[in-house]
């Protein structure tokens, strides 16, 4: 039994574009998202911010047409809807207002996007340390802006949020970059290809110019990061800069180290995953149409590898076009023409990616934090404890979980899987090929047994 033609999980750029293309082609769509409204994190709260002062730039405003396009009667939308189980037979079980429902479809598109990479250093669990992405979410969805925050880390989002804070007249107190000269040198080889996406490069350049002209102090190539709690809930942030140990005191330390795909759903259904060496993250293996090894399960957008929101929109369109063709809704001519056009645009959009991955590489001290650093925030386990376990012969994430409980907390490994993998890589004889993507199991988000027991069968 199928209730819909397609169930799309995630109403960000990829999910919204897939939904509107599929609905325009005549398919019945169920669109689920766990946030209060459409937009994903990139276009978060865009509907409400339309009339507000525009601190967020033109890229953000461009999300409006995507949100408008999903207002059509072929698309059934649920927000605050948490998907906690997806089955190979294309059933999706999701929780909404304390009740769980089962929906089935002939096709499922996963468009779950990305999360920020865990950025462990001593003190990263202290109150007053938040992610740069979280600050941007607060700016977009609640109109509250960080007061004299210190920004630290690496990646395009770091600069974007810094400029948005400057525009909103709440400039950062300082910008600390973990990027090293070596990373910049390594990226030069990818620069010629990146020139094909000149627009992105110019945008990045403009961000840095704005930060410079606003007079925000910048510290480059910082290392040996450490946060301590100070009086009145402030943070004393210690770091090494040009061989000198420095410290800054701030109310709010915002950290960022790029983003990684959210693969919980794809891993839980048994989609094959591979290790992306340049992005240092697991990603599902998909063909050029977004198809996985499981019949009827498709993946689009950043949850299949980080390429940014513009690419995600195109991936969403591509997947939906493929499904339209497979269900006989469009002609072969339309499908070929459409997909050729999308793939050409993707080629240019993605040409900048390797350059960005290399210039904003993850520093070694984040991959292998010092022993005192908490790696698993939920269970409060340190790097030292994980290493000790590995030295005593624990092999694999599963044994680590059962013996020292790292990765067993409520976040289900979302905040530690990435770091534990790199610790395993450097402390055992395993290599890139033998360390497999950790298993994910339903319920993918905590749910009460009471709610589970009340699921009504169709």
């Amino acid at each position, binding site marked *: 039994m199928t209730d819909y033609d397609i169930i799309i999980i995630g109403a960000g750029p990829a999910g919204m574009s897939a939904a509107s293309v599929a609905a325009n082609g005549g398919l019945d769509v169920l669109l689920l998202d766990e946030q209060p409204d459409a937009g994903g994190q990139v276009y978060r709260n865009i509907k409400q911010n339309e009339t507000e002062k525009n601190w967020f730039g033109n890229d953000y405003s461009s999300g409006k047409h995507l949100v408008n396009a999903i207002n059509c009667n072929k698309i059934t939308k649920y927000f605050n809807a948490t998907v906690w189980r997806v089955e190979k037979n294309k059933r999706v079980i999701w929780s909404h207002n304390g009740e769980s429902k089962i929906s089935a479809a002939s096709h499922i598109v996963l468009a779950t996007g990305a*999360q*920020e990479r865990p950025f462990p250093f001593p003190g990263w669990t202290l*109150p007053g340390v938040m992610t740069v992405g979280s600050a941007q979410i607060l700016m977009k969805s609640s109109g509250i*802006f960080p007061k004299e925050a210190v920004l630290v880390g690496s990646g395009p989002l770091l600069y974007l949020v810094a400029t948005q804070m400057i525009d909103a007249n709440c400039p950062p107190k300082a910008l600390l970059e973990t990027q090293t000269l070596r990373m910049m040198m390594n990226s030069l080889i990818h620069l010629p290809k990146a020139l094909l996406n000149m627009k992105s490069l110019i945008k990045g350049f403009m961000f840095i110019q704005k930060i410079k002209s606003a007079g925000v102090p910048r510290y480059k190539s910082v290392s040996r990061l450490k946060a301590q709690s100070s009086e009145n809930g402030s943070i004393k942030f210690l770091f090494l800069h040009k061989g000198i140990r420095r410290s800054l005191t701030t109310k*709010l330390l915002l950290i960022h180290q790029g983003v990684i795909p959210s693969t919980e759903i794809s891993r839980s259904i048994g989609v094959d995953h591979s290790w992306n060496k340049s992005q240092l993250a697991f990603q599902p293996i998909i063909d050029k149409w977004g198809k996985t090894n499981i019949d009827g399960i498709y993946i689009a957008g950043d949850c299949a590898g980080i390429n940014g929101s513009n690419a995600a929109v195109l991936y969403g369109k591509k997947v939906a076009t493929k499904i339209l063709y497979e269900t006989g809704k469009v002609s072969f001519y339309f499908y070929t023409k459409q997909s050729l056009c999308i793939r050409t645009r993707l080629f240019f959009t993605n040409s900048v990616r390797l350059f960005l991955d290399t210039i904003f590489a993850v520093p070694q001290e984040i991959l292998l934090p010092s022993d005192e650093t908490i790696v698993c925030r939920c269970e*409060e386990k340190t790097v030292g404890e994980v290493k000790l376990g590995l030295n005593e012969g624990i092999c694999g994430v599963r044994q680590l979980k059962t013996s020292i409980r790292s990765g067993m907390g409520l976040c289900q490994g979302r905040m530690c899987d990435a770091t534990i993998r790199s610790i395993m890589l450097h402390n055992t004889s395993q290599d890139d090929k033998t360390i497999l993507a950790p298993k994910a199991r339903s319920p993918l988000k*905590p749910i009460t047994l009471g709610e589970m027991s009340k699921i009504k069968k169709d």
Partner: protein
Amino acid sequence: MKPDSKFDTLVKNTKDVNFTLFGEVVTAPKGSTLAAVILSHSGDTFRQTETGALRSAFCMMGVCFECLVEVNGNQNTQSCMILIEDKMVVKRQVGLRQIEICEND
């Protein structure tokens, strides 16, 4: 004394939801997530871990589970994932979720 908020409120929305936050009655704009209201209200922490460490919201998108509070008696509620409602009672969560034992059984 509770510390000042680490955030400035730039967009002044109408305030029309009243609820109890950590024992204090607060008024906040409709449509805000609970975590955002806690952060803009004061610099107070959200919860204490099992070992007594203090924690506050971290990712604001439902990934990290640091912003757990007790809402209307429901422990382990992710405050970044719910919107505020009138007459809501929000308490700080201390330690792990407690299991209620039914005496009738």
